């Protein structure tokens, strides 16, 4: 009897440990992170529907929204899309085209970023485009400004309506590590002004810095590349990351370097379930 109860006790202890381990694993999971992230905005802006966040700041700023809607009637990124079509269809020197690398293209933006097990890194769309070019003997494109934005604009426009669905595969622990690094980046204060991304876009969305309203981070990744009036052209997500880091007087990281790719992995995961609507137009 005594022996039996001992066994029972041991069993129940084992079970309790297993349950606790599972609970803590769930607690730390990206999916749990995403729910917490999303709920923050739900609480802060109870009248804003989730799908509205693809419109960025205009989901919560009715005044700015009016002029944005006027701009979208004659979208400033349209010419870039046209140039992107030409890029997509023009053969490389070896006669191959982007289509040879991306047989499902051009509407493929929703497949990025993803964990590339073979290369052991987060693969983004701009990086994949350049790997394609290099494979076919072409020079890689610059990652912030210039013609990469044309082909990205075309791919974005062809990907409209697809849904963000970043996957963190469980068969390679390095994928979760990359996600965790991106998450850590997002919440780490940096620069002389000592701001983390989250200080503005998670703690203070809807508040104003001078006369600029801070945008919510939910939906931040759905509409790249973006025509920014401040830039007078279309630019990439990593160009924007660079600008944010400079604004807080931090040294920016390299576009398409590991830091920003991991950041993109985390940030895009936070927008899982949101519809892609790029290219975008912003102030």
């Amino acid at each position, binding site marked *: 009897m005594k022996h039996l109860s001992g066994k029972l006790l041991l069993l129940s202890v084992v079970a309790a440990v297993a349950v606790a381990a599972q609970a803590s694993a769930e607690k730390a999971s990206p999916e749990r992170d995403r729910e917490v992230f999303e709920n923050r905005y739900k609480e802060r802006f109870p009248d804003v529907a989730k799908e509205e966040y693809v419109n960025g700041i205009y989901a919560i700023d009715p005044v700015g929204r009016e002029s944005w809607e006027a701009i979208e009637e004659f979208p400033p990124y349209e010419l870039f899309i046209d140039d992107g079509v030409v890029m997509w269809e023009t053969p490389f020197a070896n006669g191959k085209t982007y289509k040879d690398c991306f047989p499902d293209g051009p509407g493929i933006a929703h497949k990025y970023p993803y964990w590339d097990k073979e290369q052991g890194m987060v693969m983004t769309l701009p990086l994949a485009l350049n790997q394609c070019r290099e494979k076919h003997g072409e020079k890689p494109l610059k990652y912030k400004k210039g013609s990469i934005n044309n082909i990205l604009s075309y791919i974005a426009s062809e990907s409209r309506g697809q849904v963000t669905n970043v996957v963190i595969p469980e068969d390679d622990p390095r994928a979760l590590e990359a996600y965790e690094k991106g998450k850590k980046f997002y919440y780490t204060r940096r620069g*002389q002004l000592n*701001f983390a991304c989250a*200080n503005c876009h998670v703690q203070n969305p809807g508040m*104003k*810095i*001078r*006369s600029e309203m801070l945008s919510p981070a939910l939906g931040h990744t759905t509409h790249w590349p973006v025509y920014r009036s401040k830039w007078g052209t279309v630019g990439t997500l990593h160009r924007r990351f660079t600008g944010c880091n400079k604004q807080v007087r931090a040294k920016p990281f390299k576009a398409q370097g590991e830091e920003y790719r991991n950041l993109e992995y985390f940030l895009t995961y936070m927008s899982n379930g949101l519809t892609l609507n790029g290219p975008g137009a912003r102030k």
Partner: protein
Amino acid sequence: MMITSTRVTGIAAAAAIAVGATLSMSTAVAADDKVLEEGKKLSFSRKDGNCLACHVIEGGEAAGNIGPPLMQMKLRFPDKAVLRAQIADASVRNAETSMPLFGKYGILSDSDLDKVVEYIHSL
């Protein structure tokens, strides 16, 4: 004679002190005005204090609203040193603060920080 002389000296000294005091008082007032003016300039400048990024200040345009309006500062900070400490390193009182650490991270030099404190305390 000795007495008289002492008296005269005494009067002269008193007069000198009085004149000196008046002089130094007017210099002090002029310096205060100048400090306040410089402090205001630093507080409004986007590259220095940029207090307006987050705080409403009377007379300042396009102010943000992340922090509270800067008014009645002597009531809120009877001790100027506490205000200075807050501007120098707001993370001491609140680790989650959104306020840059103007002193700790050298965004403002010590002397500029003093001027900003004088100005903000005057609001």
